[in-house]
């Protein structure tokens, strides 16, 4: 009975963490004075860092027209965009920039092409920051690829792994399920 209590407590802890993770903050951090947005051409979605909330669904392959601006002449500047990984793995930097400029806005076009092996259901956080004479500007957005998660062989490998290790664990724990006379 004690064991069941511990299992229940563990389950509640995990569900609490899961619930809090689902509401991870998207949008610009307080104090940020810049603006940034991107339009996914094929998906027909425009993501504005200032107003973004919830999960934005995009394609595995698309072209993004991006634009960013700051309130005053930036001077020496630096920044980067990264994808957040589960703790303690940190982040993967997608792009970084630095320089010295007096221009207050910039824009461009980026094409990305991710393999279809990447499961569609994954919700991931893309975050970024930009520092210059105006201060620091940071924000994040949650993205998800459209389509079925079952379309990727990686998902099937994971489901198979769950089944095999689950059966193995149940087999190893047989004495626990045996009735004590």
């Amino acid at each position, binding site marked *: 009975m004690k*064991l069941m209590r*511990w*299992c229940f407590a*563990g389950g509640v*802890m*995990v569900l609490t*963490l*899961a619930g809090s*993770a*689902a509401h*991870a903050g998207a949008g610009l951090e307080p104090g940020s004075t810049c603006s940034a947005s991107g339009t996914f051409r094929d998906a027909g979605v425009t993501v504005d860092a200032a107003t973004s909330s919830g*999960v934005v669904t995009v394609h595995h392959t698309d072209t993004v027209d991006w634009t960013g601006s700051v309130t005053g002449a930036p001077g020496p500047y630096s920044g980067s965009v990264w*994808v*957040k*990984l*589960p*703790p*303690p793995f940190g982040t993967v930097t997608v792009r970084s920039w630095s320089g010295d400029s007096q221009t207050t806005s910039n824009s461009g076009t980026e094409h990305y092409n991710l393999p279809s092996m990447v*499961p569609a*259901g*994954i*919700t*991931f*956080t893309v975050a970024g920051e930009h520092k210059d004479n105006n201060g620091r500007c940071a924000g994040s957005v*949650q993205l*998800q690829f459209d389509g079925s*998660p079952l379309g*990727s062989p*990686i*998902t099937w490998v*994971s*489901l198979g*792994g*769950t089944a095999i*290790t*689950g059966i*193995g*664990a149940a087999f*190893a*724990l*047989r*004495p*626990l399920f*045996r009735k*004590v006379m």
Partner: protein
Amino acid sequence: MGVGRIIGVAVLGFLFMFFVALDLVFFGVVALDSAVVTVLPVLGLVVGGVLGALAGRRQAGGQAGAPTA
């Protein structure tokens, strides 16, 4: 008590919960950067070890109480 069983079930628990965490990520239940992805395998390791110890004790108790021919 069967150290082999404890380690074996702990490893199986770790792998089982690791794959469960992957399933949750792949089906969009939790975000990729969620702490759940880290917590679940560790939880599987610990709970697996505890259950493995209990199973070893239960089996040892059963064998000790079994009638001999």
